[in-house]
């Protein structure tokens, strides 16, 4: 059985260190700017921190992946190519890219730099993945959270590119890289600005009707007294459709595929990604610890693998809305 790599999020140096300490095979991070899809204030790495993080991980035999997975525009193109140059010089083990133009630049300028296709590239078929392999020599692709297990298996059977999937964390209900909802509401999007429903457009208002959360003035949800008010990610609000008020797109919930691990291993998944660079080092510690234990158990005795209640309890504690879903892997979710 192939060994599955555990890829953990690092929004800061402490998160990186704890991920490495608790058994991540790889950590992924981004620079402190709009070149990556978690461009939040107080998050991400200055160049010196990148060097320190890489030294820490490499000393312990782990890898560092650098996300440069937003789409540069004509006006800011030089900042993205400079970021590629910095990444290559820093000695990262791979860069995670979405934009074909940037891949062409990386392949030409730094032919030894390993390229991963970001989930933001929206490649959902082997034909799309092969496009990036033939043109730019990508070695791994992260699949959007839309395919069923049988469809993932079919992708793996038809491409030489390693396949990485999301295992745990915040769940995009839309195809990643194909969502302009945030741009429509706020003018800022994951594709171009590296942030969905960005904080500077958020307003929390205590009103006689309850706590209201707004995004650029648009009411995303309203919470009764005693209800836990969540962040107004716009696809996870409550709206009215034909006079019915409900989570019309998706509930606040996390993806959790722990129970699918044996199947994911059998079909040949090469890496599992944990979402959450915007989360705290405590989150990273907890999630990394559980997934390391689960992957080790699977490796030692695949036939006997069972998810323990303790693992699920630990993961539910850090889930959005304290609940989890199998997402698109589970047909009724669709």
């Amino acid at each position, binding site marked *: 059985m192939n060994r599955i790599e555990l890829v953990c999020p690092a929004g800061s140096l402490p998160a990186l260190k704890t991920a490495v300490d608790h058994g991540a095979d790889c950590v992924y991070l981004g620079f402190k700017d709009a070149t990556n899809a978690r461009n939040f204030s107080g998050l991400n790495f200055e160049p010196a921190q990148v060097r320190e993080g890489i030294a820490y991980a490499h000393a312990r035999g782990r890898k560092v992946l650098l996300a440069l997975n937003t*789409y*540069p525009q*004509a*006006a800011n*193109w030089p900042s993205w190519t400079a970021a590629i140059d910095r990444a290559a010089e820093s000695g990262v083990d791979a860069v995670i890219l*979405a*934009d*074909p*133009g*940037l891949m*062409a630049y990386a392949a030409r300028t730094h032919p030894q730099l390993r390229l991963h296709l970001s989930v933001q*590239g*929206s*490649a*959902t*078929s082997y*034909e*799309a993945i*092969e*496009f990036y392999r033939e*043109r730019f020599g990508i070695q791994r692709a992260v699949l959007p*959270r*839309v*395919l069923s297990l049988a*469809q993932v298996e079919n992708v793996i059977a038809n491409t030489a590119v390693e396949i990485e999937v999301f295992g745990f964390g915040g769940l995009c*209900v*839309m*195809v990643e*890289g*194909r*969502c*302009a*909802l945030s*741009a*429509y*509401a*706020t*003018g800022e*999007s994951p*594709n*171009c600005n590296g942030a969905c429903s960005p904080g500077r457009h958020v307003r929390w208002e205590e009103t006689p009707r309850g706590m209201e959360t707004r995004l*650029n003035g*648009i*009411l995303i*949800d*309203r919470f009764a007294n005693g209800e836990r008010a969540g962040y107004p990610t716009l696809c996870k609000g*409550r*709206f*009215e*459709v*034909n006079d019915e*008020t409900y989570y*019309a*797109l*998706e509930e606040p919930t996390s993806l959790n595929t722990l129970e699918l691990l044996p199947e994911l291993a059998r079909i040949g998944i090469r890496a599992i990604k944990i979402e959450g660079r915007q989360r705290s080092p405590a989150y990273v510690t907890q999630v990394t610890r559980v997934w390391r234990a689960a992957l080790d158990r699977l490796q030692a005795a695949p036939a006997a693998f069972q998810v323990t209640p303790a693992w699920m309890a630990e993961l539910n504690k850090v889930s959005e809305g304290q609940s989890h879903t199998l997402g*698109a892997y589970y*047909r*009724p*979710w*669709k």
Partner: protein
Amino acid sequence: MKLALGPLLYYWPRQSVLDFYADVADSSIDSVYLGETVCSRRHELRLEDWFEVGRVLAAAGKEVVMSSQGLVESESDLKTLRRIVRQAADGQPGFRVEANDMGAVRLLTEAGVRDWVAGPTLNIFNPTTLQLMIDGGATRWAVAPEISGAALAEVRAALATPIETEVFAHGRLPLAHSARCFTARHFNLQKDTCEFRCLAINDGITLRTREGEPFLTLNGVQTQSARVHNLLGDIDDVQGRAEVLRISPQGSHTRDIIDLFRAVLDGMRSPVGALAEARALMVEAPCNGFWHGRAGVDQYVAA
């Protein structure tokens, strides 16, 4: 300036679709995009039926473009995609193709097709990526609606050779695609057993905020804006930055909207007057924020 009719994003009964395109054949539209781009479960018209509609439109002098699926998930989706590419490559019936994912780009390039449209879901945001598409045979760039007029002008200015450019000029904005069907979810159904409940919902289902403000539109696995993106009032600004205006089919008055755009292009109506006139023809209030580099939902009027 050319006028193009975008692919039909809703699921209408077969006869309504055939009647709609019979009317389009008689209109002043220049190009017509055909095919199912939203949900592969929809089957009122099969691929062969779309080819037949295309033949009728071509005979009426329209340029016909077959649009590929935006979200390709299954082997059967790939089979449809290959047939769309093959008809372009072997000339039977030989319609131009709009590539809406990189799988389509790969297949078109591999088949040696040199005259395709780079669709709005390809995420082309900079000249380097657009040039890669041009090198692969793209001869028209249908710009993603979220790109502003100023940003697309910068992309075009940096190209070695110009490319015909198409902007989304009228209709509810296609904003997102999911594996989940939100229409089925609304009716408490699963996608696999959806009972095709989106059939005959002419303009999708409006989603409102809890204050009753129209915000989005549920159209099966696609989420659209509730507001109608309308560039009628901005046509002077669009000219020089694009050569083709896309009008997205809507449940009624599509023909009137085509006529209104044509009248403005012919100098028979003022842009501002046409926009005022269009209000009676739209399913919701207008917006144009994306074109002006703002939130898409905004209706921006220069001071």
